[in-house]
């Protein structure tokens, strides 16, 4: 046996031998992501969060295609049919039915109806689309800005750091709500005009404003991580090997700082959803007939005694969403932390 093996080996080139060696290794190499996924799956609460979030997203974006025809059929059966021929989510949320005002959850209206007999589940589904999109988009803007600014300030230090951090302080000291009001007043009409519809225009402006006023804490966290990480030996090693600065920043240091960033990101989604509802409440957010979750809670709070479900259902949805996102963030932080890699 040994002879055969030896003979065989003799006849192979060096590279083929190397191939033979690696072929004994597992079929797929372990990467940062696969490791993270493996650890993430073990985090039960995080998995629960993912399931809940996916369910909410699916319900909001695909659910209406199943729910609205059913609702239309049910309403037609009880004598309050939709007036439009083509029924979609948009017409369903505006459908008034004075025969069933403030009715509690039932088979026809699983979430009950509001003061004008509008179906709360349809409105909550619509609101889910808006609120989730606003939360995620605003978070993406805030985190990108915060990471770039924080990373640049932390990595380069000196005068760049000074300037960027003073800008951050400046933004932190800006009163958010008055500034938001100002920006919305100034740019609302042109943006709506440019985007074609009030909803798209307001979405763009709300998301941009929330994102651009929420990056500061992320920037500070990222800068702090970079300050400590750039002194580490692996960075020295990378520098010694001649790795370029952007590569050091984003391939060597950033993955080590990902934990706090992800936590900041998850918090950002929740706060973006809540800021959006504050803006709607002040009358500068979405038009009052766009049922975002925040607005549904605001409107429903009037009826907390007479019809508690009006505030409780959308409030519960906000609660579930933010909680799940936080769990997911928790799981991701544990999973992505390179120091806990096995």
């Amino acid at each position, binding site marked *: 046996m040994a002879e055969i093996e030896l003979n065989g080996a003799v006849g192979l080139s060096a590279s083929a031998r190397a191939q033979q060696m690696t072929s004994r290794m597992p079929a797929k190499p372990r990467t940062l992501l696969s490791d993270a996924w493996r650890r993430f799956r073990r985090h039960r609460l995080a998995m629960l969060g993912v399931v809940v979030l996916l369910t909410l997203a699916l319900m909001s974006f695909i659910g209406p295609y199943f729910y609205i025809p059913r609702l239309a059929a049910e309403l037609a059966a009880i004598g309050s049919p939709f007036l439009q021929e083509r029924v979609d989510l948009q017409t369903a949320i505006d459908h008034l039915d004075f025969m069933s005002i403030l009715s509690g959850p039932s088979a026809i209206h699983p979430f009950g109806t509001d003061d*004008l007999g509008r179906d709360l589940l349809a409105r909550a589904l619509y609101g889910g689309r808006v609120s989730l999109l606003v939360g995620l988009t605003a978070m993406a803007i805030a985190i990108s800005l915060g990471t770039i600014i924080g990373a640049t300030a932390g990595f380069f230090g000196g005068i760049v750091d000074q300037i960027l951090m003073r800008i951050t302080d400046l933004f932190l000291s800006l009163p958010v709500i008055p500034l938001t009001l100002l920006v919305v007043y100034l740019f609302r009409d042109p943006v709506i005009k440019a985007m074609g519809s009030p909803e798209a225009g307001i979405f763009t402006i709300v998301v941009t404003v929330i994102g651009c006023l929420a990056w500061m804490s992320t920037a500070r966290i990222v800068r702090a991580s970079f300050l400590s990480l750039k002194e580490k030996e692996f960075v020295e090693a990378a520098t010694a090997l001649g790795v370029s600065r952007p590569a050091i920043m984003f391939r060597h240091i950033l993955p080590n700082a990902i934990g706090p960033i992800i936590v900041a990101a998850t918090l950002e989604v929740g706060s973006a959803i809540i800021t959006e509802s504050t803006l709607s409440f002040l009358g500068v957010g979405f038009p009052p007939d766009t049922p975002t979750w925040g607005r549904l809670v605001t409107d429903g709070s009037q009826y907390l005694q*007479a019809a508690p479900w009006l505030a409780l259902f959308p409030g519960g949805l906000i609660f579930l969403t933010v909680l799940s996102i936080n769990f997911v963030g928790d799981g991701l932080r544990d999973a992505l932390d390179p120091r806990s890699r096995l």
Partner: protein
Amino acid sequence: MSHKRLWAWMTLMAVAAMILAACGSGQPQAQPTAAPAAPATAAPAPTAAPQPTAAPEQPTAAPQPTTPPAAQQGGKLTILYWQAVTTLNPHLATGTKDFDGATVILEPLARYNEKDELVPFLAAEIPTIANGGVAADGTSVTWKIKPGLKWSDGTDFTIDDIIFTWKYCAEPATACTTKAAFDPIANIEKIDDTTLKITWKEPTADPYIAFVGPFGMILQQKQFGNCIGAAASTSAECQAANLAPIGTNAWKLREFRPGDTVIYERNPFFRDADKVFFDEVEIKGGGDATSAARAVCETAEVDFAWNLQIPKAVLEPILASGKCDAIAGGLFGVERIVVNFANPDPALGDKRSEPDQPHPFLTDPAVRRAISLAIDRKAIDDQLYGPTGEPTCNILVVPAAVNSPNTKCDRDVAEANRILDEAGWVRNGPVREKNGVKLIVSFQTSINTLRQSSQAIIKSNLAEIGIQVNVKAIDAAVFFGGDPGNPDTLNKFYADLQMYTNGPNSADPQQYLQGWICAEVSSSANQWNGSNNGRYCNPEYDALFEQLKKELNQERRAQLAIQMNDLLVNDGAVIPLINRRTPNAKLKNLEGPTFNTFDSSIWNIATWRRVP
């Protein structure tokens, strides 16, 4: 670890408690909706017994309680205005709250009572043609004031103070919001220490336009002497005076935090100081209409709350608690949709909503008519206003003599569709259009649950006739604020339709009807201060208004007013929706607040008292 557990349990229990509380209270709320707001009519206190208009020579004609006081005099009267008072100078007031805050301190010569009759306050009697006070040709009016009146600082109240108040507001630079009440005055003459004669610029049929009601409160010359002109709001001395005016009413100011609380204490120089019940009055600001209603009817922490504009489904269970009475409030009016005759397109830049830019489709009478026909006023009333309003087709509804019987506004969707078809507006998908102009309207109002629900109903009504509505809601402080720098005010009206409430503030409708003449059109030229914010301009209407101004016969005036109302309504210049009777609420043991059409809800506050 144990700490974490403890927190988890506590949170869980708190959530459970909240859910239980919400469900528990939800149950009993179900029944009272059937209970009518019966207390509303029981409110007018018979004890107030104000003197009738024609009462001759009654030295103390102000309304006084006639039954012997049953509760111990003294204590504190707490009033809740969910819009907080911001100034105590009524001539610079921006809202009812400011007029009412000033009412506790300042007085006019006379005020309107719950029967729309005048009651003398500083005046000794109400001048009439019969007693010779009002000139038969309408050129002048002669008032006599009560003798021996004193300001709360102990100085004498004189005719000069009245003349000064006129001069103060007649100066345009003072920027009095009450200027309309002083504009018709040509001169005021002091005849003797207690008599003055007002001469009008032109004969007027409304001799009570000046120094009567909330617009007529009299300032002290000694305090405001240096404040005529721009100084009224710029000089430090005048700013201080605006926040602490010296007055003649039953209380004087103790403490004022603008936008928050006003506390008043007894005025020892008040003419009937011994008959005033409360030692102290506090007007609190803040919160919203719902919490104000709860503060009176459920927790009973305040005695009186103003303007409970809340949806029926919320208000009725609160009123049914039995601790409070609802009283139809004063100074309300008709909830209406104003149509913009100018083009609010943002593309016009500076020329936006200026009167020389005609609206692309609302200038078409067919569109306005169709909108009015399509709106389901009855549903808005039944579902939202309930006992606090009734549908109306008229823009002028009080006094009853000028409420037009000629108008009709029953919902008729088929007719509305027919009118639009006939006018050439054809359906293209869900929205009608003509020559490339689509019937897409922006519809703005203030933030208020009731108004947003009304918007939803109207949006769905107009969708049925092929008009798409984009609704917008603006913070009430901005919408009604009138700030010329803000794009979202009702005066600028950067939208196609807007909804709010307004009504006449005196029994004579002339001043109110002035709001639709061409000269009042709101534009940048008058800093958007014209009261005609729909920019309606119709020579026929202007001619009627000129007639009204000259007409002295009351019956003819009423006819003219009805004619003008009919013209506005039939032309679709404005779309009346609901005649509001938005209630105030008072504790059952508070006596005195009355239903009131033309004056402040607290016009007779000096006579309020507590009963056991």
